[in-house]
């Protein structure tokens, strides 16, 4: 399991990425995240819902009532144009973040660091 502190900044990115394909609803998104990450990351319900709220407030996604299941209309979310732009920005940001952090990460084959760590 990944520490949620690290990944928090990218929860929104994951959700937006899944919504790029088609509108979806709470459980389906959490299930897709679990499957895609091979169960390395499980998004808690409260995390997911607060991300929905945040994205909705910022105008990155829209909520709408979908088809009824178990007698209740399910809330679906769809990505907006602003959401797509935000997603692009986040992807670029991640490229840079990754590049920066990489500089400080030990690679298994880096003998110099391995010596210092042992």
């Amino acid at each position, binding site marked *: 399991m990944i520490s949620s502190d690290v990944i928090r900044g990218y929860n929104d990115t994951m959700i937006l990425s899944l919504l790029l394909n088609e509108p979806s609803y709470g459980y389906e998104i959490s299930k897709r995240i679990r499957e895609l990450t091979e169960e390395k990351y499980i998004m*808690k*319900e409260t995390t997911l819902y*607060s991300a929905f709220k945040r994205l909705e407030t910022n105008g990155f996604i829209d909520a709408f009532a979908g088809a009824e299941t178990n007698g209740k209309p399910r809330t679906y979310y769809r990505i907006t144009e602003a959401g797509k732009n935000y997603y692009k920005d986040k992807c670029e940001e991640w490229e840079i973040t990754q590049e920066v952090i990489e500089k400080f990460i030990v690679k298994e084959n880096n003998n110099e660091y391995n010596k210092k760590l042992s």
Partner: protein
Amino acid sequence: MNTIKSYLDNMFLRLPQTDDVTRAKMELLAMMEDKYNELKNNGKTENEAIGIVISEFGNLDELGDSLGIKQLIENKTEVSIVTYEEAKKYIEDSRAIAPKTAFGVLLCIISPIIMLLLIGLRELNIIIVKEDLLIAIGLVVLISLVATAVSYFIRFSSKLEKYDYLKINPFELDYETEKMVKSVQNEDEPPYKSAIAVSVVGYILSALPVIITPLVSEVEGFGVLSVTVTLLIVALSTYNIIIKSAANDACNVLLQQGDYSVKNKTNKKFQTITTVYWCITVAVFLGYSFITNNWGMSWIIWPVAGVLFGAIKAITDSQS
């Protein structure tokens, strides 16, 4: 599934029931239900499924920011919760006890009636007996009625004593309970309002016999008899108002409205002022009246004290 629902209910118990919070709860429940159903379909047992769903629920603190209730979540104070059953029981008990209390009050108000009746009839020469004897009979009736009333008060008001904390301590109701109490109060409103109207008219009319009788006849006996009519009207009006206001009053206690608002409850300073103020008023009334024997005038203190109290309350309210 019920376990999950009550888990969620518990998590949300202390949150204010805004639209945002209600929606969050519904959405979270939907997600949890979906997950639970899928786990069950994949062959997990009931307990395993519930365990996984609850362990992956997360932390309610995360919702604070997005729901605008961050402060509330972080400053969770230990406020007691009144449950649905307690609230329902309190309203039922209040309704059940009201007729007994009302009857006790009725007995107190009419307690001098027999004495007045006998004295009045004697003045009119309808009964020709020594006045002392009539007063003795009247006193016996008066004291027995008051005694009966007091025994009523002791017996029945003690049944409501266990709810006193509702009037003293601040508490919270969950959403369902609050809805129930409000609907009880709404249903009760028309009979309550009309009961008040009837009783107020009764109180106003009750003055008429005493005012009109001396104008019509100068015979003293009629004057005394007219007082019995006045007392009877006052007694019935009061009886009516106590019975019909019981449920409404209980609802006000539960919804913490009016006299029972959280503001009043936490305002200990005002409570002290109230107690001291009325004790002093009673002391002055009794002291002055006994010393001067001027009972005919000293009652003036009550309306004066009442109006003055309103002024004091307004001043302390503006300070807090």
